[in-house]
């Protein structure tokens, strides 16, 4: 039987909650405090907790370093793609400036375009922040050998 049974069971319960809370912070960012930066850190914390309890190798199996590297670039691309989309989608027949979200949706009375825009941009921030946090964690955690279980 594993010596860390309590830690493992509790963290298995907690990790999904942390991720859900992360998404809550993410999507609540439209209406109140929150947003991609905070949510990205919270979601990365879930993976870091997993790595602390189950070991860095297990964590790297669940979230491969390659994925982390691609994720940090993909978030930036998503953000920039929103900006480019606003350039090619004319609003009310006129070209708008870079990152002018109004272009994304014709419904001006509810500022629907602004909602879509910030949602997509924050998603990009979330992906990049999560990935970069994990990349930093992997880089530091990867430098020292794992402590063998007997030495706890």
């Amino acid at each position, binding site marked *: 039987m594993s010596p860390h049974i309590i830690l493992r069971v509790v963290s298995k319960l907690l990790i999904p909650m942390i991720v859900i809370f992360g998404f809550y912070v993410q999507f609540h960012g439209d209406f109140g405090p929150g947003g991609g930066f905070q949510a990205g850190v919270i979601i990365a914390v879930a993976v870091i907790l997993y790595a602390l309890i189950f070991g860095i190798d297990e964590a790297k199996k669940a979230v491969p370093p390659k994925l982390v590297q691609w994720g*940090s*670039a*993909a978030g930036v691309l998503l953000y*920039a793609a929103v900006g480019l989309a606003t350039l090619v989608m004319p609003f009310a027949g006129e*070209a*708008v*400036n*870079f*990152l002018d979200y109004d272009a994304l949706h014709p419904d001006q009375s509810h500022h629907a375009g602004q909602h879509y825009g910030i949602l997509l941009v924050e998603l990009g921030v979330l992906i990049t922040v999560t990935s970069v946090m994990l990349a930093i964690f992997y880089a530091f955690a990867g430098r020292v050998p794992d402590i063998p279980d007997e030495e706890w």
Partner: protein
Amino acid sequence: MEFLANALPAGLMAHAPALVVVVPLIAAAIAAFMPNGKAGWAVAMVTATIVAVFSLALLGAVAGEGVISYAMGGWAPPAGIEYRIDALNVAVLLLVGILGFLCVIYALPSVADEIAEDKQGLFYSAFLVCFAGLLGVTITGDAFNVFVFLEISSLSTYTIIAMGAGKDRRALTAAYNYLILGTIGATFFVIGVGFLYMATGSLNMADIARILAENGHDRVTQAAFAFIIVGLGLKAAMFPLHMWLPNAYAFAPNFVTAFLASTATKVAFYALARFLFSVFHPDVAFVDLSLTWVFAVAGVIAMFMASAQAIFQTDARRLLAYSSVAQVGYMMLGLGMGTVLGLQAGMLHLINHALMKGALFMALGAFALKFGVREIKDLAGLGRTMPISATAFTIAGLSLVGVPLTIGFDSKWYLIIAALDRGWWWAVAALILSSLLALIYIGRLLMVVWTETAPSHRGEQVKRTHAPVMMLIPMGVLAFANLYFFLDASFLVNLTEAAANAVMGD
């Protein structure tokens, strides 16, 4: 020049101010996906080409329209972030665009030699982030945005300098040193911007300038001025805030040194000029005082101290790095005169120095690629073993001294004219004397390159060889530019004259 603006379709041209920064930023993310160095380089090359085309088109547009203003996200300035291009920053934008383009051509063989294969994709990614940051600092009209882009370019610069660790582990301490000092500089800068915001309630540089002119100055704006000058001075390696520079240049990968020497400090120096002349104004008493007593005096000390230090270096790249600090001194002197002519001379030397140092560091990179040489004594006989690179090195070196027939002479000529116009005879003497110091350290390099015999290997003379064509082309273009712009200086002179008039003219 207006014809350049028509080179691009109008729809693209309207968004050129945003795209010139956004394209390298997107390309940086794409380069991170690239599996090997060749693919990463291809992304960087395409990007650098696009940026060079955009910067030429913007040059044409500024020549036609005067000032271009672009509101990010449709939020009108001064509340929104404004990208604002006038004759001053379009000159720097063009410099960064063209030098970036030439450096990226040079990068392929140099980076393949110096950086581990699996890291090259990420290396190009970091380089493109740096490139985007430098372009951003140049183009933005928002003081806080300057800080953001300054940090973007600095953070990636620390990374790409540290990548030199593959050849020499000292790159790590050099990068760390720069990280600490660079962060202090950025902090000082943002504190200054904070004070300005406190005093004026605006972050838009043109708006701040307007409010300051209306409301006048007080202790807060004076503190802001001091913080901003120190912060940007650190980034620009202004004497005596240059301590990070020699090691960073000496141990970074050769391509990075060539790129940084010809763009990064130049952009920081532009930002300094923007704040000194555009946000603050030399008519204000304390600005005028610091121009004379901080910029001109420290500039002259830099011209002598750093040149003297350069003379005693043993590492070729460190020698040129100290020479860079001395050359920044010339630009400081030009700015310190606080006149249109002085600013023009400073900007002219800024551009010319980028052309000289770019060629010099590229040639050293070529020597390092073929023979792995870093020390000055190891340059022996390269005039015979690598004649083309050595010729480019010599032309750029003579240009650095200011020998007639090279653009270095133009720089000094305009600086001397400006000094005489200001009535600063001592500055003329300082310029000439420090040129003699430059003659000594460049002479040391050239003596070793041309007069000493090439080393022999097992009794056999080292054979004549050439750097890869990809290195020779950009190096040759820069060396040629060093000669060409002496014969026909009108392009650069007009460019810098317009730049100086844009901020100082009445």
